[in-house]
């Protein structure tokens, strides 16, 4: 699998994503500078976490207008899988590739810790290695991670099975206590209509190495490697 990681000014999980991708695929991804309008032929495009443009104005808003994003949108529209992690998710919503917005956490504070997620589907390129309903552990690290969409949009997302992951407790129950940021419906990640674009706030690349305390995240990259080779 050939992946490209887009680097915006202020991206800071680009290397982390690259390390996890290389570990899963055996191949280093291409690192693509935001100013470039060309992206090499890729089986997967990753928008990494960080603080693109300082997250000033609104998280992800300025990066969504970066020259490279026109090309990302075009590729996504023709079916190339695009994975947005944390700031990448925020950019995807701002760019209109995913519905809704990521608002300030209900606590108003940055939060960095592990959370539990329920895998809602395992029939996408991202999740084939997980079981449906499986509870996995990923870290989160964000201040603007509260997923918001209006009722109609939420109904559509739920109806079309486009919720990828939900914050849950150890037994997989979706509870208020398990919601770290006030996201509606405990949404941690969503897909586009075709399941090819995934945006999620938690960081799979941060628990993809036993030395870091877990490997639940590695399975996402391994799923991609197996499905997209």
């Amino acid at each position: 699998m050939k992946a490209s990681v887009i680097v915006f000014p202020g991206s800071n999980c680009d290397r982390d994503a690259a390390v996890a991708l290389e570990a899963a695929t055996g191949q280093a991804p291409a690192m693509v500078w935001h100013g470039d309008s060309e992206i090499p032929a890729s089986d997967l495009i990753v928008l990494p976490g960080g603080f693109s443009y300082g997250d000033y104005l609104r998280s992800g808003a300025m990066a969504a207008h970066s020259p490279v994003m026109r090309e990302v949108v075009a590729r996504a529209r023709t079916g190339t899988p695009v994975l947005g992690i944390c700031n990448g998710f925020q950019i995807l919503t701002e760019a209109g590739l995913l519905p809704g917005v990521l608002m300030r956490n209900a606590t108003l504070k940055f939060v960095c810790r592990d959370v539990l997620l329920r895998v809602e589907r395992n029939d996408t390129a991202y999740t084939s290695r997980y079981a449906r309903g499986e509870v996995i552990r990923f870290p989160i690290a964000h201040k603007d991670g509260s997923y918001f969409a209006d009722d109609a949009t939420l109904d559509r997302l739920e109806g079309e099975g486009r919720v990828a992951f939900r914050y849950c407790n150890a037994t997989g129950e979706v509870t208020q206590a398990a919601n770290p940021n006030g996201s509606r419906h405990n949404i941690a990640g969503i897909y586009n209509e075709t399941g090819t674009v995934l945006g999620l706030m938690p960081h799979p690349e941060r628990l993809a190495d036993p030395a870091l305390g877990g490997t639940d995240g590695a399975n996402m990259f391994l799923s991609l490697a197996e499905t997209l080779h």
Partner: protein
Amino acid sequence: MNIAAHAARAAEGITPEIVAEHGLSANEYKLLVAALGREPSLTELGIFSVMWSEHCSYKSSKIWLKKLPTEGPQVIQGPGENAGVVDLGDGQAAVFKMESHNHPSYIEPYQGAATGVGGIMRDVFTMGARPIANMNALRFGAPDHPKTRHLVAGVVSGIGDYGNCMGVPTVGGETNFDPRYNDNILVNAMCVGLADAGRIFKAAAKGIGHPVVYVGSKTGRDGIHGATMASAEFDDASEEKRPTVQVGDPFTEKLLLEACLELMAEDAIVAIQDMGAAGLTSSSVEMADKGGVGIELELDRVPTREEGMTAYEMMLSESQERMLMILKPGSEKAAERVFRKWDLDFSIIGYTTDTGRLVVRHRGIVEADIPLASLAHAAPVYERPWTKTEPQATVAAEEVPAPNSQLGALERLVGSPHLSSRRWIWKQYDHMVMADTVQRPGGDAAVVRVHGTGKGLAISCDVTPRYCAADPFEGAKQAVAECWRNLTAVGADPLAITDCMNFGNPERPEIMGEFAGAVEGMAAACTALSFPVVSGNVSLYNETNGIAIPPTPAIGGIGLIPDIATMATLALKRPGDVLMLLGAEAGHLGQSLYMQVMLNRSWGAPPPVDLEAERRAGDLVRALIRSGSLSAVHDVSDGGLLAAIAEMALAGGHGVVLDAAPGPMPAHAIWFGEDQARYVVAARPDKADAIHKAAAGAKVPLRLLGTIGGDAIRLDGEPPLPLAVVRAAHEDWLPRFMAHG
């Protein structure tokens, strides 16, 4: 007084009043005139005032700092550069330093703390290192002081927002609450970076006619007089002065970091220096002075963000996120390309010269023309009078009232402001970015993996101010020893330290005595533990209306774990494992947390540190960790033995069954005494014999404490204390306090 008023007065000549406002004594002004050979211009006065300020010149501390050991086979660069450098083997080096941003953080906690973090990171990447971990050592006033909550909230979010945006994990620190910090909080930030040992960048300008290049953000009227402010005692009026606060821009700093590292990969830079306190002045003076060259600046070329800035303002501005470099001639274009790519200002603002002078031109006028030697070396150095802090009597355990219940006391201790969990703080710091944090906050030391290797860097920040207040010498020794112990407890070889010496007004002999005592204590411990000082910072005048902070020599240490597979953590892992104490028990309760929390006062001498015993115990523990003999390790510090055990139980989620305290010492002295050089370790029962033997061989006392198991802390003769209760006490205090108090 505003700048325009200054300028107007200058036209009438420099009055004694103006001199005083610049923080220079009448005698210092005389020295200045002698060094310059004439009366200064206002701009020159400003330049002298910042260079001769306590902050830049170390005039009160210099003679004492010379006593600190700074050498060792691991040291690549000791004090004197932007940060210290130690060897990590394999051609790699760690670059690290700690710095204070106390006064700015009290005035504007968010921006003060944020710019403190930004400043220390610049010190590290200036040397060619990529920052890989941040730490923060915080001292706040009493929890019930009306300002404390606001200050905690602002400082923590300022530190978090800056480090988080930079993508550098903030992996640990320490936090104290004490009424003596009510009006003088301390915000000490530490940064550790990773560099190629053979590619360390320094500040010494070399060569004549080389371009002096300004990069980064534009210059505004930020923090003018910041450096002099940081060196002047607070009074009630200074809260009203509200100096121009520096605002941090972590996004620009992130760009600056990437641009600098990108240019450093090429062969373009002769010397580089960040613009920190005293901005353009100190960066240009230091580079020129270190390299023995002169420097000419053309201020019309300085990128400014405000109209009509004067030479005085430009030379003294403390706008953040700026760097000064001396480039190799011919590399200007390549350098400019890099900085433009990252959307940063780039301007050639001068040249090195062979005159040995700092010449500053603005709008065709020579605003300053000063022999560099007078700025850097003619600054006064004071041997201030000092009086030794009276040592206090050692308190016998019998003199300290016992609690009704040991476990009840434990519950109160771990739920007190002093020992409660700092999770509320570190949760707001991204401590995992860079995906190398192999030991997260909450343990004895944080550990970050050296990227791409199996090596780990352990980092810890330590000092116990109440010990230092009672006995600066023993307290400073203890701070170094505890740092060394915390690094050892995760299995690291301690390498070296940085420090942040926070004290009151050095013009008072008793404060100077605290400083002297602390330096000597540090020196003794650093020498005995082969743990040299490679960088540091002195922050004096931390006092308000004559009330000084307790002496606070914060120690930031790093250590190397050759193979992170052998790293130890404090979490109890296996029911059935045995728990042991390594180190001698003397039941020392003087200045203990037990006294402070249970009796609400502190007295007596702090626990003495036997450095020989410290070394023996540490070397033993490290060897046991490396040989895979231990399943958990934690040092004993604040709160004593029982607190250490409780922290291990909480971290692992396993209870313990403890044997009764051995006589004849009172039980509370055993459980809460803060004797030094001790570790609690856990091991499989079948390893106990070998551990006994190793301890005997190393002459380290060992006592069996009990067994791991259950979900409570059990102590003979007392009802068990459920872990859930301990956890609630430990975790609740800080979030509850921050929510409403």
